[in-house]
């Protein structure tokens, strides 16, 4: 039987651009260029490697996001994923992590999976909570923050490098995995891959397909609210001196003045 791998990928505003809040204090996704969250490229890469090792495997990429999120799916397809699922619905605007995990969990049950692979965190919200929430909602093992992952004999194993220790983990499939940016460089799409991606199927789902009520998600359904967002005044550049042989001493003088020495 084929191994069904589903990679959850997020479309995010470009971190190197100017990121802002919209008037309703949600992340402004209109006025900035978006892209496949770089940390999810590592998830796609591991999915492709696991699929290459397996006898028979299929990689689906799944996103919850606006129309433009198709770009993220295309990128993943051009890297080599087989097909894509896009959950798109006007009522999703402003959905928070709990809501997103609900939609993703329903979508995963809808499409079917043996292995879910997520990124370690999204590069915009950056909470790093969705994979754990997915495991909780789906009732399957959570094997997260792996810097090394392997799937064999219906089991997933991997290394989790924590602050105080490095742990070797093991769980039976189906499971939710997340991988870090230490798991190995993501491949670049080849020209052939980019051309092939154009013909790969992208399935669209909306909330009614997943049996989710509009009130459960979106800004209205959110479990949290942002009351205020203030742009921090840019740090005012301080003193910058050229080292003419005394740079270290001058620096010490500054640190002493600030009572650090």
């Amino acid at each position, binding site marked *: 039987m084929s191994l069904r791998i589903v990679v959850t990928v997020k479309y995010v505003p470009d971190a190197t651009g100017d990121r802002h809040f919209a008037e309703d204090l949600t992340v402004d996704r209109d006025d900035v260029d978006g892209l496949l969250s770089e940390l999810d490229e590592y998830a796609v890469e591991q999915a492709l490697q696991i699929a290459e090792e397996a006898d028979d495997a299929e990689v689906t990429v799944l996103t919850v996001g606006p129309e433009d999120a198709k770009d993220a799916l295309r990128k993943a397809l051009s890297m080599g994923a087989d097909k894509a699922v896009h959950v798109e619905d006007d009522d999703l605007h402003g959905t*928070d992590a709990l809501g997103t995990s609900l939609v993703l969990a329903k979508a995963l049950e809808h499409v079917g999976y043996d292995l879910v692979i997520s990124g370690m965190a999204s590069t915009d919200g950056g909470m790093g909570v969705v994979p754990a929430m997915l495991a909780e909602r789906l009732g399957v093992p959570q094997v997260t923050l792996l810097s090394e992952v392997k799937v064999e004999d219906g089991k997933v194993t991997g290394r989790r490098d924590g602050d105080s220790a490095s742990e070797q983990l093991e769980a*039976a499939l189906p499971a939710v995995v997340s991988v870090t940016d230490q798991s190995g460089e993501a491949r670049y799409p080849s020209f052939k891959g980019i051309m092939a991606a154009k013909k790969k199927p992208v399935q669209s789902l909306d909330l009614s397909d997943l049996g989710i009520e509009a009130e459960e998600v979106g800004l209205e359904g959110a479990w949290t609210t942002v009351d205020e967002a203030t742009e921090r005044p840019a740090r005012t550049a301080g003193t910058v001196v050229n080292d003419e042989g005394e740079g270290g001493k001058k*620096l010490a003088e500054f640190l002493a003045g600030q009572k650090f020495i």
Partner: protein
Amino acid sequence: MAEVLVYVDHVDGAVRKPTLELLTLARRIGEPVAVHLGAGADTAAATLAEYGAVKVLAADAAEFADYLVVPKVDALEAAYNAVSPAAVLLPSSAEGKEIAARLAVRIGSGIITDAVDLEAGDEGPVATQSVFAASYSTKSRVTKGTPVITVKPNSAAPEAAPAAGTVEQLAVSFGEKSTGTKVVSRTPRESTGRPDLTEAAIVVSGGRGVNGAENFAIVEALADSLGAAVGASRAAVDAGWYPHTNQVGQTGKSVSPQLYIAAGISGAIQHRAGMQTSKTIVAINKDAEAPIFDLVDYGVVGDLFEVVPQLTDEIKTRKG
């Protein structure tokens, strides 16, 4: 007064500093009740009481170490049911966030991660967060259920406020899902004897400019002269010059020390995301155009191999 659950981060009963910060912040909202999982509750209780815990709910079981995350969620849920708290606070570590995430789903509550400040509000606790690589500061609230909030290290100065800190055993029944992910082996990290990166008051970081693993001795020497922790940019980590656990930035540690010194680091947005909230920032870089200089309180344009050792010597001389 309402009770606030505080998840204790400890090593065999030695309570880590971020927990003392959580207790301090919890007192702004209600009475802190600490949840201590694993060995050492009796040792920890004295410290927890000193910083305001009215009660310590303790549970010890092999499951906490043998399986990933879920047994701890079961325990925290048991504590939640026992106390009906006004909020649940956890440290913003990788594990803390995962425990918080699952608890939030279970109890149907909203979650806020990486708060840098917390205050009481008319409609529940208000969390300050620093977002988009610290270019924005937001104030958020949980609007459904019991707020589950994770707080970054160095978000408050721990203040002692002695309370009873009575230890009570917490009964936990582990769900069938709790043994899903087995921890097959664990290799503890060797201690360097330096302060913990996220907790340190001073951090000295090296980047690609350090140009080699052996040259990190220069960075370490400066750090040691200041009693600082050592950090590294991803470029230095990827080159294999310094361990990933020391990486500062978006996919490494987020630090907020009193003083951050960057040597041979350009200041890419992903690096800034992890250090921009530092109180005082100092950089040494030979390129006057490096973006790190936009952030600094004091910067030296120069060769780090000249400037850093001179600085270290001068500090040693001044300290005598």
